[in-house]
């Protein structure tokens, strides 16, 4: 790989570094040593057991949803509905966990996960059908589905499923057999991360080494050529969307079964939206998504420590993440331009359909 290729591959890293640099400015202006602040973040995220556990906990839902969105991206679809799919997945898992008793964990857990995946998948099916059937942009439909899901969960967690006498809306605790085991003793870190990592590896294999993955990529990159080559494009797109929703749904299940052990009203503080960034930063590559999800999770976790010890608000980390996204999106676009002028530049986003890297996909353009 020549020097330029390497530089191109490292583009996300550049974007992050620049954003981190810029982030130092407000921190410094607020009277805190930026270097110390970053040190605290690193320390908090990785150096001690509790911090690391928190990192894992925060990474898990991002990873699930990020993988889901990545799958959709490879098919050329933008799934903004991960948030709603997370809620539906969490809901389904909670329902299974609350209503079924007497099953051993080995059965109960997969059952709940299956329900969650199905719920998330169904939630993505509606926008998928509207897209291939009516040409309606999935950006809009998935966004709308989010609200329906959030309010549905709010209703159920505060009503029929609610713990009697609870001060705010949350459900009764899930059956013990439906809860995910803790992997680092005396912390919150639960087995959800292991499942997510396994799925990431599995998806990596699918997209890199199987005919199924090849088909999805074809449909995303050039539906006309794919149709000529015999791919059933519409079916493939719907399947990708459903898989995307299922993965996000598992993220919701993981939160409910592993972290909270109950269904809480508004249990996701925007994981589904953050996961969009995670997926894009990882260029839709499952293993890269692991890295970006971990990066986000670590930043959020370390930020808590930074706030405790230095008094710098956690919020600055959000700002840094926002800047990272903007820089990366801009650099991807610029790179697209450069490619048109100079042959020889490799495409970092070669894994993302070009139409998605720059503009939102449009049914007409297909």
């Amino acid at each position: 790989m020549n020097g330029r290729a390497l530089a191109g591959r490292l583009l996300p890293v550049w974007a992050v570094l620049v954003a981190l640099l810029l982030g130092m400015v407000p921190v410094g202006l607020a009277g805190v040593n930026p270097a110390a602040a970053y040190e605290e973040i690193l320390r908090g995220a990785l150096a001690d057991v509790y911090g690391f556990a928190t990192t894992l906990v925060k990474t898990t839902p991002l990873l699930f949803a990020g993988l889901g969105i990545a799958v959709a991206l490879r098919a050329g679809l933008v799934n903004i509905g991960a948030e709603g799919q997370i809620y539906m997945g969490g809901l389904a898992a909670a329902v299974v966990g609350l209503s079924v008793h007497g099953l051993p964990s080995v059965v109960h857990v997969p059952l709940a996960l299956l329900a969650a995946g199905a719920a998330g998948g169904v939630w993505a099916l509606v926008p998928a059908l509207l897209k291939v059937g009516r040409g309606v942009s999935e950006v809009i439909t998935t966004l709308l589905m989010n609200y329906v899901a959030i309010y549905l969960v709010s209703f159920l967690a505060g009503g029929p499923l609610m713990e009697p006498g609870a001060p705010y809306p949350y459900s009764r605790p899930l059956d013990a057999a439906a809860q995910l085991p803790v992997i680092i003793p005396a912390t919150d870190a639960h087995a959800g991360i292991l499942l997510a990592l396994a799925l990431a590896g599995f998806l990596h294999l699918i997209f890199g080494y199987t005919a199924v993955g090849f088909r999805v990529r074809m449909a995303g990159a050039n539906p006309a050529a794919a149709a000529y080559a015999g791919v059933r494009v519409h079916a493939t797109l719907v399947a990708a969307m459903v898989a995307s929703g299922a993965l996000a749904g598992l993220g919701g299940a993981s939160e409910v079964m592993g972290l909270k052990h109950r269904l809480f009203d508004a249990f996701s503080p925007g994981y589904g939206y953050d996961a969009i960034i995670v997926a894009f930063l990882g260029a839709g590559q499952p293993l890269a998504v692991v890295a970006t999800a971990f990066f986000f999770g670590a930043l959020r976790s370390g930020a808590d420590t930074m706030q405790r010890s230095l008094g710098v608000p956690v919020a600055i980390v959000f700002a840094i993440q926002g800047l990272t996204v903007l820089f990366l999106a801009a650099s991807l676009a610029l790179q697209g331009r450069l490619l048109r002028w100079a042959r020889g530049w490799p495409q970092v986003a070669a894994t993302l359909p070009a139409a998605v890297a720059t503009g939102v996909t449009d049914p007409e353009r297909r």
Partner: protein
Amino acid sequence: MEGITKRFGPVLANDRVTLAVRRGTVHALLGENGAGKTTLMNILFGLHAPDEGRVLLRGRPVEIRSTREAIRRRIGMIHQQFTLVPPLTVAENIVLGLPPRRGVFLDLRRVEREIESLSRAYGLDVDPRLPVWALPVGMQQRVEILKALYRRADLLILDEPTSVLTPAESEALFAIIRRLVAEGHSVVFISHKLEEVMRISDTITVLRHGRVVDTVRTADTTPAELARMMVGRDVVLRLFKGPPRAGGPALEVDDLHAVGDRGLPALRGVTFTVARGEILGIAGVDGNGQAELAEVIAGLRRPTAGRIRIDGRDVATPAGRRAVADRLAYIPADRGRFGVILDFTIAENLALKAFHRPPFSRGPVLDRSRIIDHARALAERFDIRMNSVLQPVRQLSGGNQQKVVLAREMSGEPVLIVAVQPSRGLDVGASEYVLRTILEQRDRGAGVLYISMELDEVLGLSDRVAVLYGGEIMGIVRPGDARLEDISLMMAGSLRTAQTAAPAQ
């Protein structure tokens, strides 16, 4: 326009073209696709700047650097692709980009009235309040004309206006053109259709390969003479071609009907046979059903009636299609759309149709090393110039991209090859390579359906040539036997001959 020369990279689109349009006349620009007609008018309309030469308007030299300027100088152009915004009304479309009429407001009511009177004055009969999407194509074109008139265009350029019209709508258009001229406007009518040009124009300039062949008065010429000028005795392909050794039928098409993208009929009862070991060329001017014919045979478009048999197998059902998938090769005109996936690697593109079968797949799993080896071998055999098989195809030159398509499609020893404009956009060397490959395949025993707008190529390469006009076969002839004039007349729709239906023996 004097001595206009325009180059696009290596392609010489206009070569010292001189054209004089007299006020109050209809001046036709006649020529085949790629002759340089549209480019010339785009220069006049300010879309391009000429490399050499100058433009004089009303006797005075001018430099037209933008469409805005062209419009200011009272030139209007109606392109083949309309620039109307569908959800907006006629009035809104016409007034788009113009300054407000009353203070800051559009004053659509006044605009509508003005459009109505203008429309009546020219016999255009357009209701300004209707949204554009609700209008039939013929009326949309009239809106485009109104747009130009509303901006007080003196000189109107119509680029292949009848290509999207039904015969009845074309008649109406001619009436409008006569009206325009009566009112003192000048019209430049770009077309490839002989008959129309004879009917509507006062003067005709024939272009061929970017050069002016001649300019004549319509009254002084005949269709045959025009045909000869358009086609000429040009370079015949310097390829050695042995006699065909025809075998059984590779493709049988029977009474095929199909509808195009706009809903108009594109194929009207096409019947022919391509034998194994022969090349059947389809000649004709673009837009007469060639694209649809190729798509229907390749399985990308469903016919509305008729039968297609490939290697004896009926392909009307998905099962039939799957059965012949290996025996059919398709070299599309738009390779970026149907031929390759630009963002995929060369290796992936070479395995595009066969990836899910052994040896490229074992069960659900892809055998990547096999795919790469296969790609390397093919690249060697077909001389694809690249850095590595893992490069994205987008980075290859046009010629090499076409080689990827060829390599993939031909390597499977197909029975039928459908090639549409395979040498388009390629330099001479790449062009020759492509044509040579096709000849090789034919000698090997494949049947080739060769569709091209380059008449020289079709005539030089094919064993038999079918001329397609308006979705119908006007005649099937042998290139050696037929007169060029007859062929061009068939291309113009003025002549039907007996069909040499039997493949060459």
